[in-house]
């Protein structure tokens, strides 16, 4: 009897664990089945080469490129902000800062990661954009630059925290050898520590890129809703995520081609983040083996 109970409990627990697999299967099934409907009506070739995305207009075009360029430019700006700042913070906390300072600053930076993204969107629209408009005359109230910068600020703690872990994990002897040769902290950090922790730092950047690509609210609020094929950061752009939000806010009939476009956009987004996740997972595995 006792044994039976134990069995039942274990099966119940396993079921809960299995539910996570079901979630993944569900996501893939939903994205594929609805996109299937989309691609039976729109040529795949047009989808990846047409330079216009206008499913909601009378003159319909279904080219994903404008959404990709919008996503790309905002992500690029955010990484340009987050990588140098985040990596410098990681090096500073690891090599320079006194221990007490590090213990206080790390949780403070984590607050940045806890703020809801809709709040960052408000920040971009009401603080950063007006500020940028002073510096760059003629800048519109919706632009890729402002959204990208704010997104960069949001992912700083992600880059700094993961990079710091990577720097912390390298063997102490490596750094001691460098100091023993008379190197300064700067030389030790950039010639020894950073190269040794390179894979961990790259993983942090890849995860940050994945986060930036999938971020929705900042771009929906501050970047605009114009799917234009452009790489000019001053333009209003529309990202994949912002498009899904735009359609979701309107009244779109279930089963219509408009409805299916958000799944086609969604599967594109999913594919990118899936690839990035797996690269980082693979790199993490590889670099863990090296030091253990």
């Amino acid at each position: 009897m006792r044994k039976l109970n134990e069995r039942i409990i274990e099966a119940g627990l396993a079921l809960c664990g299995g539910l996570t697999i079901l979630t993944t299967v569900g996501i893939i099934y939903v994205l594929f089945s609805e996109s299937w409907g989309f691609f039976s009506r729109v040529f795949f070739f047009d989808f990846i080469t047409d330079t216009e995305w206008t499913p909601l207009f009378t003159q319909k075009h279904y080219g994903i490129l404008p959404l990709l360029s919008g996503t790309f430019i905002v992500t690029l700006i955010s990484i340009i902000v987050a990588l140098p700042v985040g990596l410098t913070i990681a090096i500073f906390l690891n090599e320079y800062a006194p221990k007490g300072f590090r213990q206080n600053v790390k949780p403070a930076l984590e607050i940045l990661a806890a703020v809801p993204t809709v709040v960052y969107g408000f920040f971009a629209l009401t603080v950063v954009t007006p500020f940028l408009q002073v510096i760059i005359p003629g800048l519109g109230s919706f632009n890729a630059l402002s959204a990208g910068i704010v997104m960069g600020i949001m992912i700083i703690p992600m880059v700094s925290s993961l990079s710091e872990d990577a720097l912390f994990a390298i063997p102490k002897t490596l750094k001691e050898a460098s100091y023993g040769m008379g190197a300064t902290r700067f030389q030790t950090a950039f010639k020894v520590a950073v190269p040794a922790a390179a894979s961990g730092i790259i993983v942090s950047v890849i995860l940050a890129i994945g986060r930036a690509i999938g971020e929705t609210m900042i771009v929906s609020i501050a970047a605009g809703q114009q799917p234009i094929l452009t790489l000019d950061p001053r333009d209003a752009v529309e990202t994949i995520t912002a498009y899904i939000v735009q359609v979701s806010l309107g009244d779109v009939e279930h089963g219509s081609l408009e409805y299916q476009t958000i799944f086609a956009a969604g599967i594109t987004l999913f594919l990118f983040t899936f690839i990035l996740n797996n690269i980082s997972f693979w790199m993490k595995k590889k670099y863990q083996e090296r030091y253990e």
Partner: protein
Amino acid sequence: MNNLRKNRLIDETFRYFGIACTLFGLVMLAIFIGKILLDGAGRIDWDFIMSLPSRKPEKAGILTAWTGTTWILGLTAIIAIPIGVAAGIYLEEYGNKNRLASIVEINIANLAGVPSIIYGLLGLEIFVRTLKLGGSLLAGAFTLALLILPIIIVATREALKAVPGSLREASYGMGATKWQTIWYQVLPASSGGILTGIILSLSRAVGETAPLIVIGALAYVPFIAKSPMDEFTVLPMQIFNWVSRPQHGFIVNAASAIIILLIITFILNGIAIYLRNKWQKKINW
């Protein structure tokens, strides 16, 4: 000697650059909270908290938004906590070397990286359309529960991992079964860590907007939700709606609603950090 001085100079310069970068994030956070307080603090009063939404900014309130957020928080917790903790227990205590566990592990790492809006698309098809829940609280709670499951599972595993083997062995030595050991010894010993993870995951759920927009949560709901099947709005939705309007009055409203949302988020995070510190101090295996 000259070279040495140059290197020292670079070293010192980078130290200041490091301080500047560290402060950059914190200063931004300060500017940002200051700006929101400046914009929104004056608007918060009893009427603002207890009023229904309105087309006139000075009459609009957040009653439906915060009651919706409370509903969502409660329902999501009820759904996600048992499943998440159970899955964590399974992976850590039972499935150490089996195939299912290793697949689930890779899978969870992947799920944690899936953008939240994709969960919205999943919820739209499965909960809203297939299970016919519509844009209801329940559909929203199921969607958010799936979103935060990976966080709860990972936190549960970490907490269980910290419990020493000697505790388990002592329990087995007394003749307890595996489940009795987990239920009476391991879970109480790791409850602090699990609770921390749960609260952090709920704080994430409170701030989520994108998946709820996709499943069809409404920006304008003129009544308080009375059952899980009712349509709803939440604070982040209300903020998003107000931010997108041109009138200045709504921007002020948005700032005020953000203050309330941030208070909720920071309280949840504060509790989590407090629990984590207390738990780490108390337990000295």
